[in-house]
């Protein structure tokens, strides 16, 4: 919303600079995006064309004698419309104007044009930066004062306002004027509305029937006959243009002008097109058809409110007019409408037809029914003023939805409760009165307040509290710390656990990433995670196809992250993400389990002169998962998995307390290929943190006493079938009572080992809590372990027993 300061000044005295005003409005809630200056022309004056002669050396150029009050100048002018007796904008040598060829500012110099010296310039709109018109010079009104600096005559400042959606009145000069008055201590003077009503009584010329008062509580109308349609006078066009409204013709321009002034949209019908002069405000019939002003034929139904004559819909009430009753060059009689419409219905209709007009952005905010009659009279006055004609006697005022004004009680107690500061009630009273509210005292500490007819945003007492606070200024309210009791602590266990996991993964050397929560079906297909979208949570209006489904896994997100980083030469990559996945549920919100996932790719240590060249493999991911589970106190188990995302021989389900909590493995080579990741394998893990958390022992972690006696160490090397999982061998060994810890320190298949067999070397730590074990005890226990291994997993001892100190 742009409002020229000159227009605002008609409504309210402004005694501070525009920038200061802009600041105060902004602080009070009406943000001023910019103060646009029009003018600032130096060495430019209102001039008078005394004489126009032919240029002696050029057919299409004229020599003009221009007076600026004190002396005359001779200038060369090529404009076809220059004529003797015109008031014009005259630029003397030294003026800064827009160069129409370059579009940039340039200083005007004296120049010889075809042998004749030109001592200045008669300016076009474009040269003054006022518009695009360069077909001719700008002709000023006859009453423009000769010799007045042009900036004084037609310069202006325009406030570019960004009103909040609750304030329909900030879409009007009137509303902003009251704001200015309250903030600067001045008074608003609304324009005096008076015009002669010399026509026949309006009741004999038209009747209005409101069938649906719920959708149209008030409908006012006036009739002006015998008008002359034409362009609006310059002042009117200029104001509309400065408010970004395109001038059309004098009648339509007035409706727009008054809408900008009062915030009330109006509509002008060509009176003669209305059948039998009856106005029916009714719901449309299903299938009823109307062509709107934009040339589109609309098929209506009963949810749409129309303004109709005896037969046809003539306008979509409060949204857009119909083309058949449009004001044209031939229109002589006008029926002017100013009405109230239901905001919800208005908004629904506008959205249904994608018609967001200047009218609907006002009506949808719920204009007060006090506005239409005021605006109607103002517009009638202006139409008569700029288009002539005779105004019918009286106005039509159908007001079936009339209600009394509602008032609100404002107490000093409430002000103190909300703002934390007490005022004597004369301060709120002063503020509210300056904003146009009606205030009556009710005892020493309360006011009975009625909002003015242009304010539609005041519904409760706290709305008045805000009015008081914002006008006195938020900085006038004290700053205190909370003194109310702190609520009892509620443990946030899952959240804390998730953050602990985040810490652990960073400690383990992984880089955290955060990716978009939505993915495409194609990505999930490539990750072999979904074949179709039946199980996915779909976004109805996604940003793009890339983000159409809420992700059910972090797999696709992380592979894509890796691929994009590989495209700019990342070498060693180990990263993780903790985020939610979204699992669809029937008729309910999805579950959103917190999920941790990570991947490894490339050389284990970044390539360098010390780098070993080893690449990350399955056991890196496993090590990270194991360390994580160990640290949170969960005993994890691992079993081969056939999840199609992974390499068929290198994938494991992660179990805790017997239930599945995650998965890890080398990514399937074809999945990797589909993400365009080459040059080595990717290892990936994913954990459902809510499931892991369920497995975390809830009892407090108790300290295990430190060993007081030394342990004894024995190494054994065994030969087993390669099909025996290491976990089984491990558990056989660990189950021996004196074995405190066991470590697989070598595993070998190949030369020297029979095919189908693995050679495994274990280091066993024997320990007792209450004594130093004797060599005999240790050897006995070891022999038992070997016996068990032979019986239970078919192991054979390889190369005898090796014993260390």
């Amino acid at each position: 919303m742009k409002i020229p300061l000159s227009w605002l000044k008609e409504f309210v005295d402004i005694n501070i600079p525009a920038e200061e005003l802009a600041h105060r409005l902004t602080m009070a809630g009406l943000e001023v995006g910019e103060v646009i200056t029009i003018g600032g022309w130096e060495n430019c004056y209102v001039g008078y064309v005394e004489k126009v002669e032919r240029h002696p050396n050029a057919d299409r150029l004229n020599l003009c004698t221009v007076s600026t009050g004190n002396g005359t100048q001779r200038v060369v002018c090529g404009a076809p419309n220059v004529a003797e007796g015109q008031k014009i904008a005259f630029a003397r040598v030294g003026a800064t104007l827009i160069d129409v060829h370059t579009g940039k500012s340039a200083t005007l110099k004296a120049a010889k044009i075809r042998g004749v010296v030109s001592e200045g310039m008669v300016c076009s709109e474009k040269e003054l930066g006022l518009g695009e018109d360069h077909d001719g010079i700008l002709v000023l009104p006859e009453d423009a004062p000769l010799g007045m600096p042009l900036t004084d005559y037609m310069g202006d400042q325009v406030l570019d306002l960004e009103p909040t959606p609750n304030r329909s009145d900030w879409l009007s000069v009137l509303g902003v004027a009251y704001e200015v008055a309250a903030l600067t201590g001045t008074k608003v003077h609304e324009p005096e509305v008076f015009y002669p009503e010399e026509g026949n009584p309006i009741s004999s010329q038209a009747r209005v029937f409101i069938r649906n008062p719920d959708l149209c509580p008030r409908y006012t109308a006036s009739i002006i006959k015998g008008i002359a349609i034409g362009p609006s006078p310059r002042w009117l066009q200029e104001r509309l243009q400065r408010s970004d409204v395109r001038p059309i013709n004098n009648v339509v321009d007035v409706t727009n002008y008054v809408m900008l002034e009062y915030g009330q949209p109006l509509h002008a019908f060509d009176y003669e097109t209305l059948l039998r002069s009856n106005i029916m405000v009714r719901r449309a019939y299903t299938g009823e058809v109307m062509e709107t002003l934009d040339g589109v034929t609309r098929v209506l139904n009963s949810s749409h409110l129309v303004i109709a004559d005896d037969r046809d819909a003539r306008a979509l009430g409060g949204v857009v007019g119909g083309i058949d009753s449009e004001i044209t060059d031939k229109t002589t009689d006008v029926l002017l409408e100013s009405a109230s419409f239901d905001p919800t219905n208005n908004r629904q209709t506008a959205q249904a037809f994608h018609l967001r007009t200047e009218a609907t952005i006002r009506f949808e905010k719920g204009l007060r029914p006090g506005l239409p009659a005021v605006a109607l009279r103002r517009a009638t006055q202006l139409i008569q003023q700029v288009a002539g004609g005779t105004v019918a006697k009286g106005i039509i005022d159908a007001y079936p939805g009339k209600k009394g004004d509602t008032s609100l009680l404002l107490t000093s107690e409430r002000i103190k409760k909300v703002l934390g500061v007490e005022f004597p009630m004369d301060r709120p009273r002063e503020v509210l009165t300056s904003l146009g509210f009606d205030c009556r005292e009710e005892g020493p500490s309360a006011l009975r307040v009625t909002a003015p007819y242009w304010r539609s945003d005041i519904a409760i007492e706290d709305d008045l509290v805000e009015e008081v606070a914002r006008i006195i200024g938020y900085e006038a309210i004290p700053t205190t710390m909370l003194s109310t009791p702190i609520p009892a602590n509620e443990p946030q266990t899952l959240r804390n656990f998730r953050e602990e996991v985040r810490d652990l993964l960073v400690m383990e050397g992984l880089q955290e990433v955060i990716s978009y929560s939505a993915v495409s079906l194609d990505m999930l297909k490539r990750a072999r995670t979904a074949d179709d979208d039946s199980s996915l949570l779909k976004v109805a209006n996604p940003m793009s196809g890339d983000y159409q489904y809420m992700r059910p896994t972090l797999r696709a997100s992380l592979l894509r992250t890796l691929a994009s980083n590989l495209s700019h030469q990342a070498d060693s990559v180990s990263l993780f993400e903790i985020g939610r996945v979204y699992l669809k549920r029937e008729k309910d919100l999805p579950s959103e389990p917190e999920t941790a996932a990570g991947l490894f790719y490339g050389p284990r240590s970044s390539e360098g002169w010390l780098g070993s060249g080893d690449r990350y493999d399955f056991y890196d991911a496993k090590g990270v998962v194991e360390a994580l589970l160990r640290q949170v106190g969960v005993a994890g188990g691992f079993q081969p998995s056939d999840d199609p995302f992974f390499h068929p021989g290198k994938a494991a389900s992660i179990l805790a307390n017997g239930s599945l909590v995650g998965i890890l493995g080398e990514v399937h080579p074809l999945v990797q290929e589909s993400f365009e990741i080459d040059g080595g394998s990717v290892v990936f893990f994913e954990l459902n943190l809510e499931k892991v958390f369920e497995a975390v022992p809830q009892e407090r972690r108790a300290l295990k006493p430190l060993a007081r006696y030394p342990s004894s160490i024995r190494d054994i090397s065994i030969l087993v079938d390669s099909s025996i999982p290491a976990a089984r061998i491990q558990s056989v060994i660990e189950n021996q009572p004196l074995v405190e810890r066991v470590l697989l320190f070598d595993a070998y298949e190949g030369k020297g080992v029979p095919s189908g067999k693995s050679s495994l070397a274990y280091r066993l730590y024997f320990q007792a809590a209450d004594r130093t074990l004797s060599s005999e005890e240790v050897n006995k226990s070891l022999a038992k372990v070997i016996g068990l291994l032979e019986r239970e997993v078919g192991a054979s001892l390889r190369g005898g027993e090796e014993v260390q100190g």
Partner: protein
Amino acid sequence: MKSEGFRQPFIAQGLYMTSPDLAQTIQEVRDKALEELQGLASEEELESWRILYLGRRGRLTSVLRSLGSLSQEERRVVGAQANQVKALLEESLAQAEGQVKESRIAGLAQEEQIDVTRPGRSVALGRFHPLTQILREICDAFVAMGFQIVEGPEVEWDHYNFELLNIPRDHPARDMWNTLWIDYRDEKGEQPMLLRTHTSPMQARTMERMKPPVRVIVPGKCYRYEATDATHEWHFYQVEGLAVDDGITFADLKGTLYEFARRIFGADRRVRFRCDYFPFVEPGVDMSIDCFACKGQGCRICQETGWIEILGAGMVHPKVLEGVGYDPSVYTGFAFGLGPERIAMLKYGIEDIRLFYSNDLRFLRQF
């Protein structure tokens, strides 16, 4: 070692020496030993020297052994002399050994010198995403003021995201939040499921669950149907705050948020509160801090205004309180919402919000 003693017959002669002779011998052994020690340069030579003089059958040891043949008086005098010499020789040996070791290790400078300017063995350092860091910083600031952290669903009902926040269907204020809807229709044919457009639905959810006093902050992801550019993302985080009780005022709102700004942006920060509109608060507030880059003088970061908007806030609207069954004539409170991306961008000089979710390691590794 055992055989060496046999090759030193003259010590045996000493067994029959008298006290003056013995004293004389000790002097000679001493002088000889010290003289020989002068020329020794290796640890092996020093060891031979030690065995020769101080070993179990060494010269000085043998002399000491022969003390037994002297009278008690002589033994005392000569014994003391001999022990003195022993200590002297031991000390000299230690000194010589020290010198030899020093010079041997000094020699390593040649043989074993490494190039200390080569890069060290690389350590893969884990790092938190910058948003995790800023979210933790923000949460810590409020936790220190008695707020508790709660979280809620990202896929929400219209009811919580809008209705209970005083934003009914077909209210023009809905235009403030361009919504991403979930493709789901209920029995009435309506589309009530959405991606939350702010963390504010947790205001209602929290108040439904708790009785006052309430003092929570809600970090989490939010979504809006918004074209992305350097300052807009459709996918972003928000931190919501809510404090409700009997006796919480606008002045408390100002104090709490001022303290927050000081904790995050520095103790010398100034703040500015201006009126703004959000349907679920009344009065509504927009808080700015003075620009930390130019100290309020006006620069590119603050768009020449000297101020940077960092959050929206206000007193909880009585309708919101009523909606969750709180009596608005008894309870008041304030709520606020802030964007951690924006705060991170300001703090770290990040100029494009899209960097946060592009996961470019060249970006992430800088934090």
